[in-house]
């Protein structure tokens, strides 16, 4: 007989490796009274008597389709009709384990646990039916939302069983489906959000509207570390709708919020107009007033710092037949997600409620509790849809600004960055300077490889005094060089940044893949060997690199690499492994004057077993375009510590006319676990373009963005 226990939160804790936390709350799918009739089978699955299934997605969806993918994983093991599934984004809560959505880990680290959540709930429904029919569980099966009595053919819906099932003990190790039994996993599945998106009903942070809410627009210190000297707010306060002008102190790590002056109004337009009328004098004497030319010199001078040696094999000083040295520079980058950072906070005597486009809701919850000096249990962070994220929205700064302003005004407050705020107050992708020196053997293959890479660490987000790069940062494309070279030394140099550094889609892989692939392309050229063949020859011979080699071969075949191109067209190739996935890209382009016109990009990925193929394809298409933007158009520059760019006219993004044909190859390896998808498509794009530009013009461009002379 099954013993009756309250709820199976312990089960969730065990499966996800969690600590205890609050109960699941919040539902956009059912109304309040309907929601109260939901029966919760575990932290991730609730079922309504009308057979509606609520599935919690605890990871954050910023466009990578996670709400759909988590929903389909759990729905498949639960064995329910996709039409009846509603996916709810989880609030920030330790009950779910790590919700920090970055590093392309959502599926690779949570796939099995999500399956178990569905299977556990299914087993409990089967037990409930078996109890009702007084038969063994083995005499029952499930089919699309029903438990069926195999002997009698009797059929009970999950909805009718949910109340009873929710009281049963969760099985420790439920039976999982075999791959051949999958109904949704690995198949085409319609997005749970697409209809709301195309009808304008999807809710992003910017769309949150609660009674008595005020709107804030914040003038922040133009350079990091500035202090407010004087605020002239008379004109701002005269703007109709402006309620107050409030100063905000700078917040230290790990919020990293600059000092600011907020114009608070009854609507966005009034706040923006008030801000235009606001005059703030800044004391920038303590700010870092570095300009770009000095910054590049500083990065290069980083090579004189004490090196962090992440790899040292053989002797890089061996004499070789010839040698090749190249230096690379890549600039700071901004994220520029289409929805600028936005959050609403409501601080009351009871606690604090936040609605935010936040990639890391737990971090915002902790930061809000620390700021308000209250127990974290009194802070609720609701996660909306995110209008893009790309790493920017891992940071809680904009959420804490909303919390601070709500506390100061006693009203709910929405903080919305303008595009200018977003570009000028980002946590930027690290700039970098690299040198790769290669000793080449008589056969044209490298004998020694010495890679020096200087860039700022993103650990300054958490610790202002962080002066070392993480090994993980160095192993994003530098220390983990996949080539079989007998003598290798890879050294990192941490050069502190005058601006805030965060992480951007694929992080340090961007500039490491650019430098490494560009050198490989040059070596192949010097050896008069095709760059695809050169890579295949040089890759380490092991099971992992065989996967990269396979993707390289497939992409080359798909791009018809060995076929001659029409006149005026040129090709380039690059490959990179990151986030445990293997990617190759072939670019076909033309050059007119100094204008690079990308005609076609073939990109392929081996990301193990593919859980949601259409989403993987979409992520590869998107990563290709993201890679093109940073390869050809984007850079953040500094003048006396102040970011010079401000909006899409000077921080451009690839637009439709520049978008080439994109062909995606997906390797599907049923026996390998799923690996990263959101980020690994980005790194090979810039070096593949640079290689093609070299073939078109003879110019070996080693600075991003690529600019032809």
């Amino acid at each position, binding site marked *: 007989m099954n013993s009756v226990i309250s709820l199976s939160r312990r089960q969730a804790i065990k499966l996800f490796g969690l600590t205890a936390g609050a109960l699941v709350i919040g539902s956009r799918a059912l109304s309040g009274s309907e929601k109260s009739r939901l029966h919760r089978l575990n932290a991730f699955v609730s079922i309504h008597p009308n057979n509606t299934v609520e599935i919690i997605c605890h990871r954050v969806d*910023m*466009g*990578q*389709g996670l709400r759909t993918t988590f929903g389909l994983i759990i729905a498949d093991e639960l064995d329910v009709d996709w039409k009846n599934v509603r996916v709810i984004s989880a609030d920030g809560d330790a009950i779910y384990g790590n919700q920090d959505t970055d590093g392309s880990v959502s599926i690779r680290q949570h796939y099995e646990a999500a399956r178990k959540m569905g299977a556990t709930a299914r087993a409990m429904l089967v037990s409930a039916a078996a109890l009702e029919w007084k038969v063994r569980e083995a005499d029952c099966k499930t089919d699309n939302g029903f438990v069926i009595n195999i002997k009698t053919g009797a059929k009970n819906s999950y909805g009718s069983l949910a109340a009873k099932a929710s009281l049963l003990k969760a099985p420790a190790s439920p039976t999982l489906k075999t791959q051949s039994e999958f109904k949704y996993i690995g198949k085409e599945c*319609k*997005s749970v*959000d*697409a*209809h709301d*998106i*195309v*009808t*304008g*009903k*999807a809710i*992003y942070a*910017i*769309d949150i*509207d609660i009674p008595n809410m005020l*709107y804030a627009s914040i003038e922040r210190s133009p350079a990091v570390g500035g202090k407010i000297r004087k605020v002239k707010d008379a004109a701002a306060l005269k703007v*109709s709708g402006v309620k107050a002008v409030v100063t905000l102190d700078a917040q230290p790590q790990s919020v990293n919020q600059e000092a600011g002056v907020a114009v608070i109004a009854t*609507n*966005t*337009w009034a706040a*923006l107009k008030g801000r235009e009328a606001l005059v703030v004098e800044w004391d920038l004497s303590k700010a870092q007033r570095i300009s770009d030319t000095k910054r590049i010199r500083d990065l290069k001078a980083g090579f004189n710092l004490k090196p962090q040696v992440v790899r040292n094999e053989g002797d890089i000083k061996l004499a070789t037949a010839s040698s090749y040295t190249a230096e690379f520079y890549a600039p700071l980058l901004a994220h*520029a*997600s*289409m*929805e*600028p950072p936005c959050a609403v906070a409501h601080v009351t005597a009871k606690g604090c409620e936040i609605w935010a486009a936040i990639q890391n809701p737990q971090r915002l919850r902790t930061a809000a509790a620390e700021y308000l000096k209250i127990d974290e249990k009194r802070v609720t962070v609701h996660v909306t*849809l*995110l*209008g*893009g*994220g*790309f790493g920017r929205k891992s940071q809680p700064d904009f959420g804490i600004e909303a919390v601070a302003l709500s506390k100061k005004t006693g009203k709910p407050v929405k903080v*919305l960055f*303008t*595009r200018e705020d977003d570009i000028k107050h980002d946590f930027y992708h690290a700039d970098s300077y690299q040198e790769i020196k290669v000793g080449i053997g008589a056969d044209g293959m490298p004998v020694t490889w010495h890679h020096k890479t200087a860039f700022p660490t993103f650990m300054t987000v958490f610790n202002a005094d962080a002066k070392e790069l993480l090994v993980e940062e160095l192993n994003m494309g530098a220390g983990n060089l996949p080539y079989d070279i007998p003598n290798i030394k890879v050294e990192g140099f941490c050069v502190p940044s005058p601006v805030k550094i965060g992480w951007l889609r694929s992080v340090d892989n961007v500039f490491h893949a650019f430098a490494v692939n560009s050198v490989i392309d040059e070596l192949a050229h010097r050896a008069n060997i095709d760059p695809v063949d050169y890579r295949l020859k040089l890759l380490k011979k092991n099971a992992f690199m065989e996967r990269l080699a396979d993707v390289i071969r497939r992409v080359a075949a798909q791009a018809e690499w060995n076929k001659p191109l029409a006149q005026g067209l040129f090709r380039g190739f690059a490959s990179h492994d990151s986030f445990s996935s293997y990617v190759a890209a072939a670019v076909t382009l033309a050059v007119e004057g100094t204008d690079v016109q990308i005609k076609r990009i073939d990109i392929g990925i081996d990301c193990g077993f593919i859980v949601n193929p*259409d989403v993987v394809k*979409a*992520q590869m*298409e*998107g*990563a*290709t*375009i*993201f890679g093109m933007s940073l390869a050809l158009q984007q850079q953040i520059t500094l003048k006396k510590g102040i970011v010079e760019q401000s*909006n*899409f*006219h000077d921080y451009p*993004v*690839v*637009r*439709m*006319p520049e*978008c080439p*044909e*994109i062909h995606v190859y997906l390797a599907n390896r049923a026996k390998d676990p799923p690996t990263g998808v959101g980020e690994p498509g980005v790194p090979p794009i810039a070096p593949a373009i640079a290689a093609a530009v070299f073939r078109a013009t003879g110019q070996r461009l080693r600075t991003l963005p690529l600019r032809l002379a």
Partner: protein
Amino acid sequence: MKLDINNTTKEYDGDPDRPLLWALRDILGLKGTKFGCGKGLCGACTIHIDDDAVKACLTPVRAAEGHRITTIEGLSEDGSHPLQEAWEEFQVPQCGYCQAGQIMCAAAMLKANPKPSDEQINSAMAGNICRCGTYPRIRAAIKSVAAKTVVKT
């Protein structure tokens, strides 16, 4: 001032210089139209005034008086505009934030030119940024609608 929005007459007594974007979102409760740049550079706020696609962030409310305003909420009653259906069929959205603007821009283009060439599509859509990079699918969705359209002569 009376505004004709999505075939309904709405009373608006706010600042006539306020951009339509903020009037729609903050005053009139229509939040499908999105803010992206405030400078007419990204197209996230694209709506229709009469049959033209315009950037709501740069259009003052007063300029819309006496004209038909259509937002994503009014493009169809139930998401059945051919472009909305195609957007779902081709699984265009990633984050989805820019897509209302993309669809409104494409709808105006197809109304004026039901059989656009590739170049005409590129040029009509050039003002709408998608940071997620859904352009290949936007293109495919537009082309599928254009291909199904019967042009009366």
